């Protein structure tokens, strides 16, 4: 398990070395908000494009078994 923890830290170290962005706490909650807003938009879009009769669509989606 100890080795496992040490691993988890590695990505952050690498990111610092290469100067690629590192997430600090405020950024995380900010991106969390952004994610939630995006998800809300996405759910609106699903309402628009989802097959109108979901029950029939799901029932009629039958495939022959393949490989």
């Amino acid at each position: 398990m100890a080795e496992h923890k040490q691993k988890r830290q590695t990505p952050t170290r690498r990111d610092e070395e290469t100067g690629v962005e590192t997430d600090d706490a405020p950024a995380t909650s900010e991106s969390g908000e952004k994610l939630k807003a995006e998800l809300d938009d996405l759910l609106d879009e699903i309402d628009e494009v989802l097959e109108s009769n979901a029950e029939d669509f799901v029932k009629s989606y039958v495939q022959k078994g393949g490989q």
Partner: protein
Amino acid sequence: MALPKVCGIETEYGIVVRGAEGNPATASSQLINAYVAGIARDRSAGAVTWDFEDEHPATDARGFTLDDALAPEVETTLVNAVLTNGARYYVDHAHPEMSTPEVLDAREAVRFDRAAEEIVRRSMAYARSILSDGAELVVYKNNSDGKGNSYGCHENYLMARATPFGQIVRQITPHFVTRQVFTGAGKVGCEAPGSEPDGVAYQLSQRADFFEEEVGLETTIKRPIVNTRDEPHCDPKKYRRLHVIVGDANMSEVATYLKVGTTAIVLAMIEDDTLGDDWMLANPVAAIRRISHDPSLRATVRLHGGRSATALEIQWGLLERAQKYEQSHGLAAVGESVGADVLRRWESVLAGLESGGDDVADIVDWVAKGRLVDGYRERHGLAHNDARLKAIDLQYHDLRLERCLARRAGLSTLVSDAEVESAITEPPTSTRAYFRGRCLAKFADNIVAANWDSLVFDIGDEPLRRVPMMEPTRGTAEHVGALIDEVTTARELIERLGA
């Protein structure tokens, strides 16, 4: 040193006829014929039929042949086309299927897998223009209909014949069972034999429910985690082709990249005998389902010797071995720069999954789909087994741009549109697929048959000429590019190849 991990992806797609009556085998033929006729019309290029000389799906890697155990895998009356990008586009059972050309690394595998999607999309458009009013063929890149019927997305990797098959089975199984934490495409409900359909609300993998054996030759029933089909499509004394049937079809480019990239590295380690048996599972079939059925990723599975581990712990263990392997052996077998990038991303996807998954919603299909399913369920106060959630599951994989939910889910991309566009018509440059594709583009009228390891030419009054391609890494742009550029007839090509 490990052989180059020449690889490819074969995808069987789901197909539905809308607005008309139709059976799936006919619909699959119509789809592919529509494409072949469509591109011929658009570019006046021909298509060439497949040659079955080299097909031996009943040969078992464990060293015996099952003569009557399998129905013929491919019905020769059905459509079979070889494309100028080196791919094979055909009807298998009742599904349209595309096999990408052979490529040298995971990034190229992604590029040609994406090209396959685009070809299917164009096929749907061509079919719409042929079919009667309003009728439509709709193709889904998934692996299950939610009713117990599954169809596959297979990977193939070149392996040295000298590596004992038993060692491959033993050492690749832990990866095949646990890689689903980042390769799983997500599924609403459960189809495992003997389980209640609603017994699992949401699971990691489309395919895990369908695996009933650890190792075997079957692909359509009692599916094994390691498939033993021994049909190398190249020099059988030197090589084998590991035929991998355990994966999901991914909508996420990065997931496909990780699926192929990590597997190629693990196989290279097995070939170089550096992996060892640390992560052998006590019961792989039970483990693959247990892991799939637990999106919290906390479930543990039993290892040989009595220990238990989570899928993530096993993946961290494999990654650590891979990082050591990079130090000791290098990653030439999987492409140095692609291999190094795969290792970086492998580490970061495991870290992201461990910290709750939100960080990898743009990479891992089951996480991306799960957000849609959960979000929609919460917004509308739905039960876990509501048909709308199952519809979201299916529609995530709908290849029509206007309906596809995966392309709305904010997935990261890896290859550019231009790279995909060129892969629709042009072969990869670094394998024998280059020779196949270029010859088909330039001399289609003279090629009477093609398969993975040969082309058959008709150059006029003489007997047909078979050009064997038993070495997957010969026939590349470097080897034959200039020659194919220079010659103006197939006869000249054959003469100069023989010279």
